[in-house]
């Protein structure tokens, strides 16, 4: 298949206009010894053949749409309303690019403005950007911004070990070239939240920020009020990576004085897609806006006085400020931000609360049934929303294998993968996609695992 429409006659006419004989003549500036290498690649195919080839590849994957799934750990299976896909694939959104020309990009610009507003409403913050790559890079950019907010006089960052392990890795990667000291803060083994005393002990006048996750990687709700006070007490900044679905229920980080709030937006109607594209949400205080990374849309008027939207505060961005920019981000996740905007509009105030409630009650039902089995107990005390850790009498990796092979169930996340000290700890999630019957099936399957005791009703 080719998408080059010229006929041979047109091609010849164009070459003639240029004054060369063959297309190859247009490459005389390439050193001859490396020009036109042979590519060891197969020939192309028609659309029909491609459809068949890729349908066969897709069929080699087992999907969460056809198998009950209890995995979360940073990516969650939620409902996507049909209208979302329909609207998102409109070519006017889909095949446009960055709205550099506002007169013909009001659609994208207004969507960004609405997205920024929704992110602020959800997080309780003043101002949000037009998106980052994902939740992890949003958090890494927040860490760098927190250092900038101290004019780089402070370079010590405290990061809770109850933050998603991959997010912590990304923060570490992003800090590599800078002289940043990353101090890991352990979590309390009793309630699974950031160890407040360890924070207190680690704070000093060089500390730029404290970074926590809300609810954290184990699903536990961090005491944001207490943590915020501690970090503000030494004049540092409070950075919170939040779960937007939980914010349908929980007090937003903005209410606790957070200085920067980031989030992975995937839970808001975005399919799992094996990890991406997702979208990073990024919000802060108005007084910090000039250090915020990424694009931002603002409201203005046109020469006839009509309301319109433009990209603004661009003096922070790479195309204007180059090495002094607040980030190198250029292409962001606009379409996924659009999807989030559509989703939050479609479910609205009532619907998001309903989603959060469904998650909450289903996760608790699952927890209650599972911990009724001998040898299974909640790993931590204190409230959670849609995700929780249980101690298991057998290694979760073996449980997961058994569940998959004998029941076609996709089990939970084995916490030992990232926390060697959490042997036999299993992280499970339930959302509105997990029907009661699936939850019951999981529990019965676990009960039937050779070596597990039967449910004690």
């Amino acid at each position, binding site marked *: 298949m*080719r*998408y*080059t429409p010229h006929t041979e006659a047109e091609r010849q006419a164009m070459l003639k206009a240029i004054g060369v004989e063959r297309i190859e003549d247009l490459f005389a500036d*390439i*050193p001859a010894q490396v*020009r036109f290498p042979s*590519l060891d*690649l197969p020939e*192309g*195919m028609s*659309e029909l053949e491609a*459809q068949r080839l*890729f349908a066969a590849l897709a*069929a080699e*994957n087992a999907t*969460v749409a056809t198998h009950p799934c209890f995995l979360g750990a940073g990516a969650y*299976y939620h409902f996507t*309303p049909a*209208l979302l896909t329909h*609207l998102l694939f*409109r070519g006017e959104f*889909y095949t446009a690019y960055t709205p*550099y020309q506002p007169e*013909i990009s009001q*659609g994208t610009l207004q969507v960004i403005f609405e997205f920024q507003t929704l992110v602020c409403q959800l997080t309780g913050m003043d101002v949000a950007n037009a998106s980052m*790559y*994902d939740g992890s890079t949003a958090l890494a950019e927040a860490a*760098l911004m927190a250092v900038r907010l101290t004019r780089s006089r402070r370079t010590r960052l405290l990061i809770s070990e109850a933050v998603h392990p991959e997010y912590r890795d*990304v923060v570490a990667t992003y800090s590599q*070239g*800078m*002289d940043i000291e990353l101090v890991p803060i352990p979590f309390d083994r009793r309630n699974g939240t950031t160890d407040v005393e360890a924070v207190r002990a680690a704070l000093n006048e060089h500390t730029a920020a404290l970074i926590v996750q809300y609810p954290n990687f184990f699903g536990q709700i961090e005491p944001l009020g207490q943590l915020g006070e501690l970090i503000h007490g030494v004049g540092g900044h409070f950075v919170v990576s939040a779960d937007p679905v939980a*914010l349908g229920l929980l007090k*937003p980080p903005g209410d606790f004085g957070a200085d920067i709030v980031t989030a992975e937006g995937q839970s808001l109607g975005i399919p799992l897609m*094996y*990890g*991406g*594209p997702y979208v990073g949400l990024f919000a802060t205080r108005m007084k910090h806006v000039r250090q915020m990374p990424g694009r931002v849309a*603002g409201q203005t008027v*046109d020469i*006839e006085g009509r309301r319109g939207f433009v990209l603004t*505060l661009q003096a922070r961005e790479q*195309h204007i400020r180059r*090495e002094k920019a607040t980030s190198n*981000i*250029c*292409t*962001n996740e606009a*379409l*996924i931000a*659009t999807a989030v905007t559509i989703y939050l509009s479609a479910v*609205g105030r009532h*619907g998001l*609360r309903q989603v959060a*409630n*469904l998650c*909450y009650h*289903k996760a608790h039902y699952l927890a209650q049934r599972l911990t009724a089995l001998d040898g299974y107990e909640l790993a931590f005390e204190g*409230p959670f929303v849609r995700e929780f850790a249980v101690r298991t009498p057998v290694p979760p990796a073996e449980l997961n294998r058994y569940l998959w092979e004998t029941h076609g169930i*996709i089990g939970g996340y084995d916490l030992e993968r990232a926390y060697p000290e959490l042997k036999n700890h299993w992280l499970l999630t339930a959302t509105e996609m997990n029907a009661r019957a699936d939850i019951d099936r999981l529990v019965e399957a676990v009960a039937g695992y050779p070596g597990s005791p039967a449910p004690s009703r």
Partner: protein
Amino acid sequence: MPNTYGFVPREPLIFEHSVPGRRGVELPPLDVPEAELPPEEYLRDELPLPEVSETDVVRHFTRLSQLNFAVDIGFYPLGSCTMKYNPKVNDAIANLAGFLHLHPYQDETTVQGILRLMYELQAWLGEIAGLPAVTLQPSAGAHGELTGVLIIHAYHTSKGRRRHVILVPDSAHGTNPATVAMVGYRTVSIPTGADGNMDLDALKAALNEDVAGLMITNPSTLGLFEEHILEVAEAIHSVDGLIYMDGANMNAMVGVAKPGDLGMDILHYNLHKTFSVPHGGGGPGAGATAVRADLARFLPVPVVAKEGDRYYLDYDRPESIGRVRAFYGNVNNMVRGYVYMRMLGREGLEDMSRTAVLNANYIRVQLQDLYDLPYDRICKHEVVFSGKRQAKKGVRTLDIAKRLIDFGIHPPTIYFPLIVEEALMIEPTETESKATLDHFIAVMRRIAEEAEIDPDTVRSAPHVTPVRRLDEARAARRPVLRWTPEGAS
């Protein structure tokens, strides 16, 4: 407030459609017993989201979409962005349930299809680059740059030294120096010579043992192939620096020259440019990064590997720079890019780059009598003019750009390269027909004429858009960055 003016939408904000108590999409009822909610102090009392109906939502976003220009509507020669046609089959395949509904932590045995796709894509990108080791993790071009510069940093660290400088030509895109700064390096800018090539003498003068590497875009953002590239590579390697090639312009290079053969050590691709992944109003993209075999050890974890006929995620890479994001990258966009590559195949990919270059040169020769051509030689996939001549008549490049809109054409890139005064960076891409190019040429010629005899028409453009020129100074001076109930207009 009227929603339309004739059929031109005037669309309020979604918040302005909101009515207390209105419901949108319904969710299923609770089918398990209710648990006790957490104590009051954890719960938010208000959730200030909009309350609208499903019909409101569909009309709102449909109307907003109609305020946009896009590749599906018309010619979009936005230089450096490669706004080619996005085949619909890419999306049909990317939306198959077997690609859409996969959790990133599913067991590898249950996702062999997607792992195989990623593995093969790595191999194709490696072959085209002549740089065999590939990571698919970067989310976009600039993220690929960050990955690449971190690899440069890791390379020098592995040799037990710390260097402080990265050389960047003055024609570079803003992401290059911004990336350099993010890794804690200092940018030293290398000027461009009168022939559009990097000034070799200046490059050599800037070289010393503190230079960690060079970031170069080739073809450059002037749309020109860097003719002394082999010498440049030799010079950088003589101080054991590494060369990062910004592959934003790979649409000119596939099957034309392999960056690896040109002495490049690291390259990023923008799958959303070269391989037809749609731009989505600003993203998401996908920014795969390819490196020389001996630099493979520094790639982010994990990479997709194969043992026998089993595909797996390889985390066992002790010298890795670490992750640059959670999970494995913008996987669904990798599907789109790979579908495109497979359909084109070897010959189709070669034809792609050659035709892209043909189209740009066709525009070059048809407009160079009316628009100033700062570097008068064969161009690659894009041609950069200067609007200097028109500026003398008081018509700026910005005005020319806005006037193009009146003729149903998206303006070229005008915000860079910074070294060309009043730059007009035109990238037609290979998917445009001769008829479209001829129309564009005719419009550009007409605008050049208008600049002479009727400059006001150009200066007041666009004339037929939903809004006219917007007050950007006001937006920056008094930022209104979100809707509030109080500030409702």
